[in-house]
């Protein structure tokens, strides 16, 4: 499965980094948060994903082509991001490849940034963020750092695959999820997830710009959100609203 997608390295990849994932999903929380990290932490493109399975799309920047699925980083951070929604049938091979690559680079912790949709999002005065982990040790670490744990429920999307695969391999990983809109870009939720991230990783990202420019970000993210809605329907993202029934 991992052979179907290749990661092409463009720069020296650090060993022992923390690896983040920010993919288009509920409220585009992960992508918005990851974009802010890239800009503020001045992360450079260090690798990209290449595969015949990927949609025939490139993103142009200053007239030059770039893969829509790239890895940014510095000497302590690796951050995988996608500019376009990941087709449902690519989620497994993509996450498998990324996790295998991260393991080879001796990544110490994997963190997926995303949102968890709530029905009454419009009424929420203060958004909450939650964490779920791949191992009991990672869960304890998040709890000790004051992050609320998502104890029960369904998780759908890249972060679900990450937790499952990291759990099988004993790799410490966290899914950080902020309450958000399902179908509308949610920069406020991205700000909340970045705040919580600071507790876990110590990485400080100024969220004031996200909050000030929130409406403009929502307008700009409109088309990516629209296409992400279609992929979320394909993976039955709405299942995250379901009442959980854990059979013990």
């Amino acid at each position, binding site marked *: 499965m991992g052979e179907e997608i290749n990661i092409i390295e463009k720069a020296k990849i650090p060993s022992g980094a923390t690896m983040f994932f920010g993919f288009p999903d509920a409220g585009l929380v992960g992508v918005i948060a990851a974009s802010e990290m890239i800009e503020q932490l001045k992360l450079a493109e260090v690798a990209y994903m290449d595969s015949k399975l990927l949609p025939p799309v490139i993103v142009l920047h200053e007239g030059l082509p770039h893969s829509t699925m790239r890895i940014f980083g510095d000497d302590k951070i690796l951050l995988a991001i996608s500019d376009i929604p990941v087709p449902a049938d690519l989620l497994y091979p993509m996450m498998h490849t990324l996790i295998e690559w991260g393991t080879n680079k001796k990544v110490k912790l994997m963190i997926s940034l995303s949102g968890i949709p709530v029905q009454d999002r*419009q009424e929420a005065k203060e958004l909450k963020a939650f964490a779920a982990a791949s191992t009991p040790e990672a869960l304890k670490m998040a709890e000790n750092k004051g992050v609320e744990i998502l104890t029960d429920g369904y998780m759908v999307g890249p972060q679900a695959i990450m937790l499952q695969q990291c759990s099988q391999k004993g790799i410490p990983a966290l899914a950080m999820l902020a309450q958000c809109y399902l*179908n*509308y*870009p949610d920069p406020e939720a991205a700000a909340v997830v970045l705040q919580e991230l600071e507790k876990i990783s110590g990485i400080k990202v100024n969220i004031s710009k996200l909050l000030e420019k*929130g*409406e*403009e970000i*929502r*307008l*700009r993210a*409109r*088309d990516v*959100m*629209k296409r992400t*809605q*279609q992929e979320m*329907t394909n993976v039955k993202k709405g299942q995250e609203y379901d009442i959980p029934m854990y059979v013990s």
Partner: protein
Amino acid sequence: MLADERKRSVIDIINEHIEEFERWLNQFEETLTEKPSWSKKNSAIEPLKNITVHPKEVTMTVDLPFTKENTLQVKPLGENTLEISASTKRKIRLNELGIKHQEGEIQKFHCHTRLPVPVQMDKMEIRFKKGILEIRLPRKHENRRRKQ
């Protein structure tokens, strides 16, 4: 259970399936027609929207960031279509949105939306909060059944 009630519930189930099929068909039609979200001619962008059909009402939300609330208009067009428009807080040039190959600007949000089930347009309720418009419309068939 009375025979009438049983009969009605079967009809309800069939209706629900038909409505579900219509919603799927609408979504399918949207995916078939790849079109830009904005119109240079009208200086308008189509907002993101979401329609939920409940047993007694239809709720629709529309994402209208960066709009002037006092310009928001929701107009019924016939029995099952709504026209929604709102001006943006300022003119946004297309190149500000990363569109470099074409000149133009966005001045408003605009869309026509066909509702998937019959509704009572005269009982429409709207509210606008945090840049999101919420429209609530009672469903028509509920009344018709009550009269039976």
